[in-house]
């Protein structure tokens, strides 16, 4: 086990959390699997013997998964149509609208059914997060980083287009994709705001805020292996700062009694537990709700000698080697009324 200096002697815990320290074992595995060594070092520190299982799982390509859009078509009708076209699909047990595509005669994004908005291609972890927000008809929902629209459209689908969705996205190309997807899927109860969620003004305090934070994407290495080497530790520190700012903003916007769902498509503790820990500092009017809908792994309670806020233990993690999904961190926070 690595030994880290006591926090009592440090002014900034970031200096320890983001310190680059790499053991021989981490170097060896990083070279074998093609990662930046600091990532593997973190896996070894947090997961021990499981670290190599995670690295192995990340070598397996992600299966395509679709979310049947039962706002436009019944899922049985969609399954039947795709079956007739030669697709082999199987229901994903923990996703009410999810189907894994085992075989596809053509690209799943090029069928007439896709163009008609009968389904959306969405990774399973991402879809699971969409359910956890728990949006209800009539609620005002803010999606702070909405493009390309997977979870945003899921909010509207699950509420039969009767939650009012404010979807925020700053980037020009991504905002186009967001609009295109929401239109294709047939929804109407949304406003897309092109802007930075840090500055955007909302007409009323939202009942629910979804923050699927911009991240390193370390959780989707199965889909995009370039993520093994894309984010330097310095980049990660900047991403972390932005995530903290966004989560604090989310907590300041949500109405008393309302829910903030924080998610990051990452296996990095710096983008998960440490973000929630920092964001909750000084906020006594926020509680973390345990996620009981799915057997997530419990979030890490400490890292490099830093014990996180007790509320962090209610958050959850998805791991490729445990759940067969992409890597995700999820935390459901409720502002007390």
């Amino acid at each position, binding site marked *: 086990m690595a030994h880290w200096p006591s926090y009592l002697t440090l002014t900034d815990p970031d200096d320890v959390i983001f310190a680059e320290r790499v053991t021989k074992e981490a170097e060896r595995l990083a070279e074998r699997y093609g990662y930046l060594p600091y990532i593997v070092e973190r896996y070894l520190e947090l997961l021990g013997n499981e670290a190599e299982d995670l690295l192995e799982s990340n070598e397996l390509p992600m299966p395509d998964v679709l979310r049947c859009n039962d706002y436009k078509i019944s899922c049985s009708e969609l399954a039947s149509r795709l079956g007739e076209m030669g697709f082999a699909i199987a229901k994903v047990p923990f996703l009410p609208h999810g189907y894994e595509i085992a075989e596809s005669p053509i690209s799943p994004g*090029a069928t007439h059914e896709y163009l008609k908005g009968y389904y959306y291609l969405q990774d399973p972890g991402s879809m699971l997060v969409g359910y956890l927000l728990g949006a209800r008809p009539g609620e005002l929902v803010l999606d702070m980083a909405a493009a390309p629209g997977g979870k945003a459209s899921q909010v509207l689908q699950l509420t039969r287009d009767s939650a009012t969705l*404010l979807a925020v996205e700053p980037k020009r190309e991504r905002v186009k994709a967001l*609009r295109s997807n929401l239109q294709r899927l047939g929804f109407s*109860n949304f406003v897309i705001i092109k802007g930075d969620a840090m500055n955007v003004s909302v*007409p009323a305090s939202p009942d629910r805020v979804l923050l699927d934070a911009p991240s390193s994407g370390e959780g989707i290495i199965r889909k995009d292996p370039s993520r093994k080497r894309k984010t330097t530790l310095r980049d990660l520190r900047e991403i972390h700062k932005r995530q903290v700012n966004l989560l604090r903003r989310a907590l300041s916007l949500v109405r008393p009694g309302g829910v903030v769902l924080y998610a990051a498509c990452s296996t990095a503790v710096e983008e998960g537990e440490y973000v929630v820990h920092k964001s909750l500092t000084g906020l006594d009017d926020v509680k973390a709700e345990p996620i009981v809908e799915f057997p997530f792994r419990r979030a890490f309670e400490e890292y490099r000698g830093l014990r996180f806020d007790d509320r962090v233990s209610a958050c959850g993690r998805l791991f490729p080697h445990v759940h067969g999904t992409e890597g995700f961190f999820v935390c459901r926070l409720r502002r007390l009324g």
Partner: protein
Amino acid sequence: MQVKAPRLRALSDAELRLIEEFARSIGVKPRAVALNPHALEVPGGAYLDVFDLPTALIRVIEDLRFVYAGGYYVGSLTKSKFVPGLPLAQRLSRLCGLGLRCILLDLYGAKRFLYGERVTNEHVVRFSEGLAVVVDSQGEAIGWGIGRRVRLKTRVEVRVEPVKDLGWYLRRGG
């Protein structure tokens, strides 16, 4: 300095008339196109995107700025006409056979149409002249097309020219 930002607003009478003219031209009532049409006003924009806003959204949009889109997209307005959008074809297609101008294509015709190609004769199952909603053999909208009868030397050819088709979602890249 006040930044002029895109915002949604109710349509003017002149703009509403353009939608009424369009609705009449395809055989439906204006309320079938939109109940609460609002235009997205973009400073310096050459046209206006038009959205049908659910009631709950009307309350929300008043103070919102930097709006990129909102509500059900029905089409766009130039100074002289209304150009229908793809979602509107899907919304209206249930009115095929109830006054709405529709063109029905067979499977091969629908495939060609979705590639943005002209469809002729034997692949046109039911024909209508002028701008019409185009539906496939399942009766589901796949876009807007213009039906034309063209007199050739020995025969009359029926043609359906794509105006907007769902394949656009692919061709624009997502």
